[in-house]
């Protein structure tokens, strides 16, 4: 009987402790301002970022995942290149107000003004890597949490246009260099997309041609 009780206790204890251990600690307003300042300063000195990414789309209703992988390139100002390599090749270049999409067999030029979804995603991604998103108090309310080796910025959209699609954006900043390690976009549908960056190279020379729109 005693053994059974100990066994049940051993099973339940970790369940009780896990949420407490995983609970992110909110930063005070002063500390949050300090972290925002450091992120902004780091972003100012990051003229380019090159990384690999793994994108996981979590489908809440059917409990499935869609995984994509590829290479990410960012260069100031407002130049982004998403190069998907898995599960199929797909290229998106954001060059200021223009988007170029290359499918296997199709090329598409899209104006940011005409495509609402891409416009919002572009603003979020550029804002995240340029460090301006955290101070965009017009469009987002922002809370910063202290994790073990990261700061977590939880951004709740205030703008009705963004709220139509996204319910929350969560950014994870590396404590050592204040660059983005991970980005989660939560949709109003309950689905979310998790983009994790790895092998980051900051301020390496990326040729402008990488962002050219043919």
């Amino acid at each position, binding site marked *: 009987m005693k053994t059974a009780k100990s066994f049940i206790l051993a099973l339940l204890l970790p369940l009780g402790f896990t949420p407490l251990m995983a609970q992110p600690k909110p930063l005070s307003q002063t500390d949050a301002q300090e972290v925002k300042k450091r992120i902004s300063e780091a972003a100012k000195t990051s003229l380019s970022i090159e990384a690999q990414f793994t*994108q996981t*789309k979590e*489908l809440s*209703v*059917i409990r*499935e995942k*869609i995984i*994509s992988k590829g290479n990410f390139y960012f260069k100031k100002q407002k130049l982004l290149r*998403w190069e*998907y390599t898995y*599960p*199929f090749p*797909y290229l*998106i270049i954001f060059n200021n107000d223009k988007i170029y999409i290359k*499918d296997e067999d199709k090329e*598409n030029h899209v104006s940011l003004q005409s495509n609402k*979804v891409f416009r919002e*995603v572009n603003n979020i991604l550029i804002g995240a890597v340029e460090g301006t998103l955290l101070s965009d108090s017009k469009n987002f309310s922002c809370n910063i949490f202290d994790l073990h080796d990261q700061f977590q910025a939880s951004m709740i959209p205030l703008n009705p246009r963004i709220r*139509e*699609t996204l319910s929350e954006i969560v950014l994870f900043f590396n404590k050592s260099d204040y660059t983005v390690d991970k980005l989660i*976009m939560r*949709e*109003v*549908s*309950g*689905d979310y*997309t998790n*983009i994790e960056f790895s092998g980051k190279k900051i301020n390496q020379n990326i040729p402008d041609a990488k962002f050219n729109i043919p």
Partner: protein
Amino acid sequence: MRSLIFPSLILVLFLAGCDPVKKSQFNSAGEAPFKAPVWVSPFHEGFEKALFRTSLDVAERHLTGISIIKRTSDSSFHFTFANEIGMTYFDIEVFRNSYKPDYIFDPLNKKSFLKILQRDFSVMFFSVSEGKPTRKYIQKDSGEAVYMYLKQNLYAWIDTRQNTLTGLAGWSNYFDAVMVGFREYNNGFPTEIRILNPKIKLVLTFNLLGH
């Protein structure tokens, strides 16, 4: 009684006009009796889920991305379609005669459009050979056998060499007439699927990425 003949005739002509299939693409299979084939939709037996590279062309929109089709019960499938960067376009449960939207991308959230899409999926997911076909034709260019099931408003294309279902055409009204093509079978499942709704110019293509 005579007063009913005219409306009935109009109805028959209307339903015949809904038929998306052009008979000029067929050769006659002759009047000889034929054996009714037994076939089922590739989504019918043993299908659990599949991941597709997907594109949708409708109303001057071209949407691309990745979709999952998952069987959720004996009588339902779930279809989720998101663009490459992960934003959801469709998240919808499809039943034989109805649908339950969980999320629909706002510009496409039109009841009439979703009803047509539901009907398209219904033909693709739930069709099986029921009863004896009314007529048999031969497709001119491919030599496939085409069976017409008048009661169900349905045509089925069978590749008799491979014994596979290569196409379906179905309709319940003028607007929801649909043609579904199943191509490049691998391990009993098509790796290319194309839904064409000629009346509203909808083209939905699926290229299999994995099960």
